[in-house]
C-alpha cells in the first residue's frame, strides 16, 4: 500500500487535471480522480506494462469521466445522436476560414488561459474529442473506442469542435483588442 501511495502522490496532479479538463467541475473532478485511483488499485493485477502506468491510469480516469458525463447527459434527456453537427452541419462548418491565426503573438500563459476558456464553452462531446486528440494524442480509432462511437462521428465532432474553437478564440482576441 505504501508504494501505491507513492504512485498516487507522484501522478495525482496529472490524473486530477485530466478529470478536470473533461468535467470542468472541481469537486466532480476530485471525486472521479480519487475513484480512478481506487479502481487502479483493484485492477493492478491487470496492468501488464503494455503502456506506462500513468497512461494506464489516465485511461481509467477518462473512462470514469465519460461514464459520468453520459449519465448526466441521460439525466438531461438529450440524445447524443441528435447533435447538430451530425445532422448536416452547424454554422461552424460553413463559416469562412479564419485568418489570421487568432492565437498568434500571444504569450504562452495567455494562450493557455484562452484555450482553457474556449474549451469550457464547448459541449462535453466536443471538449472530450479535442482533449483526447490534442492533449492525450489519441488516434481517431482510439477515441472512437473510448467514446463508444464510430470513427466518422469522431471526425465530424473533431472538425466541428475545431471550427468552434477557432471562432471562440477569435472572439476572445477581438474582445481583448477592443
Amino acid at each position, binding site marked *: 500500500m505504501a508504494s501505491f501511495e507513492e504512485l498516487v502522490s507522484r501522478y495525482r496532479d496529472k490524473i486530477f487535471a485530466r478529470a478536470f479538463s473533461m468535467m470542468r467541475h472541481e469537486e466532480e473532478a*476530485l471525486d472521479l480522480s480519487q475513484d480512478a485511483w481506487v479502481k487502479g488499485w483493484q485492477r493492478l493485477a491487470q496492468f501488464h506494462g503494455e503502456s506506462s502506468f500513468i497512461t494506464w491510469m489516465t485511461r481509467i480516469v477518462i473512462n470514469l469521466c465519460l461514464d459520468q458525463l453520459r449519465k448526466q447527459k441521460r439525466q438531461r434527456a438529450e440524445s447524443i445522436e441528435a447533435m447538430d453537427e451530425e445532422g448536416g452541419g452547424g454554422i461552424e462548418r460553413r463559416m469562412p476560414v479564419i485568418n489570421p491565426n487568432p492565437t498568434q503573438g500571444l504569450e504562452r500563459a495567455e494562450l493557455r488561459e484562452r484555450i482553457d476558456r474556449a474549451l469550457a464553452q464547448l459541449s462535453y462531446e466536443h471538449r472530450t474529442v479535442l482533449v483526447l486528440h490534442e*492533449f492525450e494524442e489519441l488516434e481517431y480509432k482510439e477515441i472512437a473506442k473510448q467514446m463508444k462511437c464510430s470513427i466518422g462521428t469522431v471526425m465530424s465532432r473533431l*472538425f466541428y469542435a475545431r471550427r468552434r474553437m477557432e471562432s471562440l478564440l477569435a472572439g476572445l482576441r477581438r474582445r481583448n483588442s477592443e
Partner: protein
Amino acid sequence: MKNDLQLKVQAWVDGELSDGEARRIGEWIANDAEASALAAELGCLKQSMSGNEVAAPLSESREFYWSKIERQIQRESTLAGKPSVPWLGRWRRYLAPAMGAVALACLVVVAIKQAGTPAFDEISSTIDGMEAVTFHDQSSQMTVTWLQDNTPSPVEEKSIKSPVQSQDAPESVIDM
C-alpha cells in the same frame, strides 16, 4: 467545400490517411486555395493547442487526498472478503431441517383436513321470503342452486286475513 472533403483535409492534417491517399489529398490541397486555407487553419489550431493545456491545480493536500482513497480501498476490500449474509451461512444447517419439518407438518394438516371434509356441502339461506339452497358435490365438482319464492300470493294473503277484515276492507287495500 463538401463536408467529406473538409474531413479529408482534417484527416490529412492529423496524419490519419494512408500513404497513397495522403499524397493524393496533399496534391489537391496544394492546388486548391480553399482547401489550402482550411488546412492552414486546422494546422495552426492543432499547433496552438499542443502542449498548452492549463495545469489545473489540486487544492487538497497530499495526505488528505490519499486518506479518502485509502479509506475507500479498505472499505471495498472488507466488503469483497465478507459473505453476502454472514449469519445465514452459520444458521443454514440448523434452519434447513427445521424448515423441512414445518413443511411436512403443513402437508399432513392439509391432508387430514381434506380427508375429514364431507363429500358434499349444503347451504341454505332465506332472505325476505326467498329461499336459496346450494348443493356442492366435491367428488363430481358440481354445484346446484335452488331458488324458491316463499312470498305468499295475494290469494293466500287474503285467506290469512280474518273474514271480518276482508269484508270491511276494500279490495284495493287487500291487494296491497
